[in-house]
């Protein structure tokens, strides 16, 4: 169906793709696997006409083809869900879904009922229920991801390319997508799926191609390999403990939250102990995402009391919270985490001067050494600290955001999907890192949509349902069934 041969793509300072060949057949799900910065997204962008490769050929339905832009590819029947989502935040969900029709000639006038109906139809295909009139800017990352998937699915493509479509989705939403992909495969659509979640590959893919540093290092039928085989093929070594055991025992109470509420949350009571990882789980729209922001001072109107080490906090702005030692890692790295046009170094230093602990005079040597430290510790793959953040691969951008949070030396770190889009190898490293932090007495509030991560890393789990606390589960009660049960109903 779609075939590329000997593709090479060079960016200043990096050879992102080096002589890559690959083929996807009709009615097949091909998975692309590889570490952060391996070149997966770049390959997709070459396939969809965004980048033109230095060398190599693309064949579509047996014919050599050259795309001069994303529109060409789309017209040929190739739809893409990109890793870094791009929406018009002020326009409604419906319009964002419909927007490509605005370039068609017969659509000089906009028929609003048609726009909304089409949007509804598109969303129904993946069982998504968002009011079509809502502005996209008000949707969560997970919702945006689903809208984008709906758009691509609705376009009736012959080749559907999904670049980490599930990185922000929970199990249920992922399952819906998997079913949808199966349906499309039966209709003969070819699908390329990029994901860091090996389970998804085992579940749905027919074939896997593994990329490392811009080379193809392996290709196999999914039935013929195990999970561990794939992982070691991808990172080039074996990963023994994906989720390291926490060895420390949480100490006394560090943060206590009493009767806390905002416009979306109400009546929350919980504590976070020193050195503890408190997992937070909820289904889409439950309010668990807002909890992270609220504890970071983003909602100046709130009720209840929050104490840090006994001291009553005024959660009026992030500025105040950072000074008190609370940091927040937002889930939307592109909109909320990074200044994309600035260098990696400058992004890592973004929080540094707001902690109130450091000198306000900029010392460029010190900035250099701090950013180098994090680039090494988190293995951020970038030509240099001066490279602009936008040109990094998704997973590496995520690491930059993590680095800027950690550099503040916080007491409490609130993580919103901390490993979104991060490869298995780096993920294990981050978990080790978090554990090391808790050893030092740092407390972690981890809001995540990933069940394995939640179960393995948390000391306790707080479950939110419709803005209310539906359960606070101790280690012994923490099972997937319990958590999901609490997430779907209040009277757990």
């Amino acid at each position, binding site marked *: 169906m779609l075939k590329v041969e000997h593709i090479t793509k060079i960016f*200043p300072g990096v050879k992102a793709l080096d002589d890559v060949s690959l083929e996807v057949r009709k009615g097949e799900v091909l998975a692309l696997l590889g570490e952060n910065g391996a070149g997966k997204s770049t390959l997709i*962008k070459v396939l969809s006409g*965004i*980048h*033109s490769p230095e060398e190599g050929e693309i064949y579509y339905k047996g014919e050599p083809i050259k795309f001069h*832009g994303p529109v060409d590819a789309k017209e040929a029947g190739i739809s893409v869900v990109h890793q870094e989502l791009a929406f018009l935040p002020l326009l409604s969900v419906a319009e964002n879904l419909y927007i490509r029709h605005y370039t068609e000639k017969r659509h000089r006038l906009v028929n609003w009922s048609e726009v909304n109906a089409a949007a509804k139809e598109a969303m129904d295909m993946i069982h998504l229920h968002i009011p079509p009139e809502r502005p996209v800017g008000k949707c969560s990352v997970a919702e945006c991801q689903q809208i984008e998937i709906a758009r691509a699915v609705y376009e009736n493509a012959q080749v559907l390319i999904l670049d980490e479509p599930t990185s922000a989705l929970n199990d249920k939403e992922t399952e819906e997508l998997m079913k949808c992909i199966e349906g499309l495969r039966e209709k003969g659509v070819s699908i390329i799926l990029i994901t860091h979640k090996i389970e998804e590959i085992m579940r749905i893919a027919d074939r896997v191609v593994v990329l490392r540093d811009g080379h193809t290092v392996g290709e196999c039928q999914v039935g013929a390999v195990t999970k561990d085989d794939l992982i070691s093929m991808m990172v080039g070594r074996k990963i023994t403990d994906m989720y390291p055991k926490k060895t420390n025992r949480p100490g006394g109470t560090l943060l206590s939250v009493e009767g806390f509420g905002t416009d979306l949350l109400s009546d929350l009571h919980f504590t976070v102990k020193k050195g503890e990882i408190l997992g937070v789980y909820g289904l889409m729209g439950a309010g668990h995402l807002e909890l992270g922001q609220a504890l*970071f001072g*983003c909602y100046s109107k709130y009720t209840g009391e929050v104490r840090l080490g006994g001291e009553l906090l005024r959660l009026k*702005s*992030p*500025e105040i*919270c*950072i*000074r008190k030692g609370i940091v*927040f890692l*937002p889930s939307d790295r592109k*909109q*909320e*985490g*990074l*200044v*994309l*046009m*600035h260098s990696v170094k*400058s992004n890592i*230093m*973004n*929080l540094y*001067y*707001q*902690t109130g602990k450091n000198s*306000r*005079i*900029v010392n*460029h040597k010190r900035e250099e050494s701090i950013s180098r430290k994090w680039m090494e510790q988190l293995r951020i793959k970038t030509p240099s600290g001066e490279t602009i953040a936008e*040109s990094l691969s998704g997973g590496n951008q995520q690491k930059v955001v993590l680095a*800027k949070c950690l550099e503040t030396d916080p007491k409490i770190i609130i993580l919103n999907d901390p490993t979104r889009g991060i490869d298995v190898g780096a993920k294990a490293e981050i978990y080790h890192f978090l554990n090391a932090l808790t050893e030092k007495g740092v407390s972690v509030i981890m809001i995540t949509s990933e069940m394995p991560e939640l179960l393995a890393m948390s000391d306790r789990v707080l479950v939110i349902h419709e803005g209310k606390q539906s359960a606070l589960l101790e280690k012994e009660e923490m099972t997937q069934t319990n958590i999901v049960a609490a997430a779907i109903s209040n009277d757990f």
Partner: protein
Amino acid sequence: MSNLKQGIQKVKKIDYLPLIFAYAVIIIFFSVCSPYFLSFTNFMSIILYASIVGILSLTTCLVLAAGQIDFSAGSVIALGSCVMGIMMRGGSSVWAAMAVCMLISALTGVYNGIMIAYVGMNPFIATLAGMQMFRGIAYLLTDARSITITNNVFKFIGRARTMGVPNAAWIMLLLLLLFGIVAKYTAFGRRIFVIGGSQKVAYLSGINVKRDTLLLFVIHGVVTGVATVIFTAQLGAALPAAAQNTNFTAISACVLGGVSLTGGKGSLMGSVIGALLLETLSNGMNMLGVASFWQDVITGFVLIFAVTLDIIKNRRKGSSY
């Protein structure tokens, strides 16, 4: 060898490289066309006239880098200038007049800053309204008449030279150094660029976006005040209709210097070179006797040309979007 390569790499990274190239072309062109152009005296006269826009472009550059814009500075200059004229006509000392001018300019900054940061008005609208109000007040105060000012302090500031270089130019260089340090070596300077890059990211990074934006506009007001004093001193008069174009020339200078109008990026050095380039252009064209309407056309063309060069340079770096 590797040193040379590194050096070249560094030079290549300078944002205003196309500007220097364009400036060189202009200088060569006028030197060939006019025998009087290429001389120390002429260059000092260029720098004397460029200093007003040069000074204004410093904080204009920071305002643009913060993702904001200011259209009111020209009117602020007219207003400050008229107030000084009235005070000195009434017998106040030049120092008192200058102090009041600074104060008024700072207050216009407070107005812009509060409207934009705290009320949440679009900077385009807030400063456009400011532009009309301040100009209007200047007319009201003077009854639309000009006031001549003769004063030794003004002569010193406006016309005199130290070590052969005009004092106004010294002030510009001093402020360039000062703001260069602010932009590169203070947390405040760095925050300005983060705010311009993304207000959301800045807010979530614990930056008090409102306070910093207000502070920036106040500083911009004060610097506009300095430009006002030099402007009035050079002109030797206060005119309510003065400095109609100064504001836009300063923005042009910043754009020539590679500032991003969407914020997050900008070079002070580039902006000052931009101001010098624009003044050089008008000086050269005057020398060749180019008619003033043609001068406008050519200035506009040079702006487009330089910005196009910049776009091409950026495009080569990255991908196709």
